[in-house]
Structure formats: C-alpha cells, structure tokens
C-alpha cells in the first residue's frame, strides 16, 4: 500500500512538474481590438494581418509556443479596454498585450501595461501621446503628426503657398490639423482658412461651400476611413472643386480603394500622404499582398500591415530575449530594431519607442483602367516630431 502511494505521488509530482513546465513554454499574447461595432472592419483587417503572419511564421518564437487570446473591445470604450487588459493579465496570465485600434483604448491599456510591467505593442492607434503612457510600450503603426507635419513641409516646398484646411472635429482630426499647420507654416506657408466638421457628418454641402467661397489655391482634408472620404469627395466634385482647378491634399484615408470606387474619375489628381499602400512597388510588398489576397480574399491596408509588423516585432523580440517575457527585456530588445516591412524600411526609435518609417506622397491616377494611388515622392526616416516636446 505504501509503495502504491509513493508511486502515485511520484507520478503526480512528475505530471504537475511537466504541466508547469509546459505553461512556462508558452508565451500568451493578449490582443485587444474592436471586432464588432462601428470599427469592426478595421478590427477584421488587423486580425487578417495577424493571421497571415502566424500562418507564414508558425506559432513558435524565442523557443516558446505562441498563444493568442483575442478580446473584443467593441469600439471606443477605454473602461472596457482597461478591464480587458487587466483580465488578460490577471486571469489569462498573458505575457504581453497587442492590438489597439483606437486611441482612448490604447491610453487606458497603457496604464495597465505600465503598472503590470507588461510589454505592449500598439498596432494602430495614431495619437502621439499614447507612447508616453507606459515605458514598456512600442508602436508599429504610425502617428498623425509623423505624417502631417512632414506633409505640411512637403506641400509648401512643392509650390503651394496657401492652403484651406478641413478636418473632422475629434482627436485624430485635430491632431492632423495642428500638425499640418505647424509643418506648413514653419516652411513658410499661409493657412487661409481652417474648418472643422462634426464626426460622422452626413452632409458636407455647407463646409464645401465655405471652402469654395474662400477660393483657395489648395484644400487640405482629413477624414477618417469608412463612409466619410467618398462623401466629402463627392460633395467637392458636386460643386466643381477638383484637382484640375484646386489642389486637393489629404491623408491617405481620403483615397482608400473603396472611396476611390465611389468617387470615380473626379478623384484623379488628388495628392495624399500615407505610410502604406497595397500598390507599393517592392518585392516584399508584392509577396505580402499576394499572400494576403490568397488567404483573405481582400487587399491589405494600414491596419493589416501595422498588425503584421507588430507580430514581426513580437517574434523578433522574443527571439532576441530567447523567450524571456518580462516587460523590461522585451522592450529593450525592441528598441532600435530595424527591418524591411511590406511598406518599406522601418525601425523602432530607441529614445521614443515609436516607429520610424518612410512617408510616401502619392497621386491618384488611372493605371490599367483602375484608380490607384501612385507613389511619386517620399520623406524617409520620418519620425514623430512632437515627441519629447514639452507642452
């Protein structure tokens, strides 16, 4: 009887030991993104990027197995995001957090990351200050000033002296407006008018008429993706404002593929600045787009590439730390990392932990009967200019 008990206890101890060791051999990643609600489409594209990466690179990194736990934040809900981050860390015992489409959610989760000392990868949210919320946070997407301040300077240097700006009146739109104004004015330009329209504005006729009355040399527009780009572009075209008589500048959301389909030929000549387009001519991107289309029957966008690069960063950091998952180790491994992404060469700034990348200037043109954004200029190694600036 005693022998049986000893034998059984030994077996139990061995099993527990093995089970414990197995748990340590897995790295759990908590992904917080909007899989439902108004931003569901962006969440889907982000997830598509993640799925493609794991399909291509398997589920092992740094010698450990990677497990992804997805949580739906449903939309702009910082309290939900905070709760989900806490639950992921405390209940699901994740080793790091990733995802984050929307700024308020990223800010809320940033607090949790700082407190719990967990590595956090922001795959989309584009407001500058997010990165300051936690010393264990890095970003693989873009920041609004990174695009727009550099863009403002570019616009002036390329022959436009006066611009009328129109933006959506909420965080990112205001950021874009301020950044563009800064860059443009610092280079020597003059802002002749600045309008802000409500979020999800249904009818642009009043704003477009105001812009028309000012008779500007150029109009700068910032709208979020979805239904707004086509709506404002159509309102402009309706009033006879098009690139043949007024230069139209925008951030890449203005000329997303589905928006271009709605706008038709009136969009030809619109100039936008963005960090990624599926048409980017590089071998890495062609491969990426091909694999993405094959897997998801859809073209990748900035959300997909932000997530794809985020996963690359996580895997590479884990390889570098040989599987160690504490926040300090991973964030130090991530600082300074540089690689070729489908969008071009990118790196993580060791000082700010934010992404450094090329901003492309593109023009809408008809290529093979289809409207596409054709890259014709770029700003290389663009950084977020507001970083480190004391208010």
């Amino acid at each position, binding site marked *: 009887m005693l022998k049986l008990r000893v034998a059984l206890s030994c077996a139990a101890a061995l099993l527990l030991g093995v089970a414990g060791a197995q748990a340590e051999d897995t790295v759990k990643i908590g992904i917080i993104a909007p899989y*439902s*609600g*108004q931003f*569901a*489409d962006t969440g*889907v594209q982000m997830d598509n990027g993640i799925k493609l990466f794991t399909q291509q690179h398997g589920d092992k990194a740094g010698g450990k197995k990677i497990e992804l736990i997805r949580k739906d934040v449903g939309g702009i809900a910082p309290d939900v995001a905070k709760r989900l981050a806490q639950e992921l860390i405390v209940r699901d015992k994740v080793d790091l957090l990733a995802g984050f489409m929307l700024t308020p959610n990223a800010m809320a989760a940033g607090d949790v990351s700082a407190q719990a000392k967990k590595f956090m990868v922001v795959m989309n949210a584009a407001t500058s200050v997010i990165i300051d919320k936690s010393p264990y946070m890095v970003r693989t997407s873009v920041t609004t000033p990174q695009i727009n301040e550099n863009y403002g300077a570019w616009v002036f240097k390329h022959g436009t002296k006066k611009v009328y700006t129109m933006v959506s*009146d909420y965080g990112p739109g205001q950021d874009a407006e301020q950044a563009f104004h800064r860059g443009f004015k610092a280079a020597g330009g003059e802002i002749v008018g600045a*309008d*802000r*329209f*409500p979020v*999800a*504005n*249904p*009818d642009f*006729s*009043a*704003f477009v*008429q*105001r812009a*028309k*009355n000012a008779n500007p040399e150029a109009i700068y527009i910032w709208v979020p*993706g*979805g*239904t*707004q780009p*086509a*709506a404002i572009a*159509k309102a402009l*075209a*309706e*009033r*006879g404002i098009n690139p043949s008589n007024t230069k139209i500048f925008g951030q890449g959301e203005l000329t997303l593929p*589905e*928006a271009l*389909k*709605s706008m*038709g030929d009136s969009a030809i000549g619109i100039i936008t600045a963005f960090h990624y387009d599926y048409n980017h001519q590089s071998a890495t991107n062609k491969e990426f787009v091909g694999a993405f289309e094959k897997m998801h029957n859809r073209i990748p966008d900035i959300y997909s590439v932000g997530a794809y690069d985020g996963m690359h960063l996580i895997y590479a950091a884990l390889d570098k730390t040989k599987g160690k998952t504490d926040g300090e180790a991973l964030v130090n491994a991530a600082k300074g990392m540089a690689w070729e992404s489908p969008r071009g060469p990118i790196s993580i700034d060791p000082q700010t932990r934010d992404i450094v990348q090329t901003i492309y200037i593109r023009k809408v043109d008809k290529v093979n009967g289809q409207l596409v954004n054709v890259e014709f200029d770029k700003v290389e190694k663009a950084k977020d200019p507001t970083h480190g600036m004391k208010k």
Partner: protein
Amino acid sequence: MISQIMGVLFDGFAYGMLLFLLSVGLSVTLGLMNFTNLAHGSFAMLGGYVTVTLMRDAGWPFLLTLPVAFVAAAVASVAFERTLFRRLYRATELNQVLFTIGLVFVMAAAAAYVFGTVAQPVRVPDYLNGSFRIGGINFAVYRLFLIGMALVITVLLVIGLEMTRFGAQVRAAVDNQRMAKGLGIDVDTVFAVTFALGSGLAGLGGALAIEIVGLDPSFGFQYLVYVLIVVAVGGLGSIGGSFLAATLLGVSDVAGKFYVPQLGAFLIYAIMVGLLFFRPAGLFGKR
C-alpha cells in the same frame, strides 16, 4: 450675399428632403399604428444594400433598383411584422423600443456578415452627377433629384391618405380601431399594409440617401437619431409635419454649419429641444 443665402436654402432644403425620405415611413408607422419601430433605419439600410448589390453584381441601372429597394424593405417588414412585431402591438412603448433596438443590432451584424464591414462603393449614373450654376447659386443635380422624389412621394402619400378608400380605412382604423372593426374594416390587413408601406418608404429613402451619406453596417444606428428628431419635431402621423420638420431641420443644419461652423451638429439638436419645449407634440402632432 443673396446668392449665398439662396445657396444655403437650396442645400438645406435638399438635406431636409434626404431626412424626410428616411423619416416619412416612420412617421406613418409610428403615428398611424402607434408602434415604435426603431429598426426603421435598418430597413433603410436594407434598401441601400439592395440598390448597391443590384447595381454592382447584376449591373442594373440605378433608377430601376429604387422600386426593388422599396419592395424588398416592404416584404422584409411584412415578414418581421407577421412573426415578431404583432406580438408587441399591445406591449408598452419601452418593450417595443427595446425589442426593435435589439433588431437593429441583429440586422447590423447580419449586414456585416453578408456584405462585410467595409463601406460600400456607390456610384450613380453620370446624368445624376455634377451641378449647374444659375445666378451664382450652385444646383447639384442629385440634390434636385432628391427634392423631386421627396415632393412626388409627399403628393402620392397625401393623395393616398386623403382621397382613396384605403386611406380612409387607415384613418378610420387609427382613430378608433374597434369602431372600424365593427364597420367591417379588416384592421389587421390595413395595419400590415400600412406598415409595409412605411418600411418600404424607409428602403427607398435608404437607397436614395446612400449616394450622399454612404453605406456600411452601422447605417441603422447612425441615422436613427436624425430620423427620430424629424418625426418627433414634425408630430407623429403627420406627413405634412414631417415635411415641415425635415425642411426646418435641414435648412438650419446647413445654415448653422455654413455661417457658424463651430456650432457644427449642435444646432439641429438645439432647434429640436427648443421646438419641443413649446410644442411637445411636435409641429402638427395630435398627441
């Protein structure tokens, strides 16, 4: 100066007509049947998707898709009415609201599942694009088209309600259901047809609106508020009231955004609050 004001009036009136087209169906169902159908915006969304799908996948011309959008939304509403809504005719307004809001969520999820979450590209034929200038005022062709459609529908509805036998039956059934039944009017069928008509109008409104406002699965949520404002301000059951309310709201929204853009979307709500303060039943409401 004058041309600016005229321009604002035209654009405002056109926007008002867009709101009217989306809301008139709700005024009909809410006012005449006393059934709070918040899923009205979802029927509009359905009409929008019907139009987009027919144009893109079957190559139909835009104008031909409009009656199909109307019929599709009407048929869908009949299906919902027979199976779900008629159980709630006697329920409290809160229950009707809760139920139909739930329906909005379900339909949004269904739309996301079937069509994807991406914004749908919408292109109307070239003869509806562009604009022309008369006397310094810009007249957009599509907005003229919207105004035209709204006026035609108003006239048809008013004639239908005031001068046809069916219209008389509807009015009788609304005023006094028991009496109407006693006189041999088939109230159930009258209500079902009225509901179908109201929802069909929503579908048509949606199909017409998407060129200006775009289409994605959250359409039912986004325009619900505007539709409710128009119906509340206009008075339940009054088509003339909806027309006037929509005009008022459209013009003040566009005028506000044009002259004082910092007020933005606030003006439309301020006007609603102000009006309801003095006339709680709406402009032409009976209750």
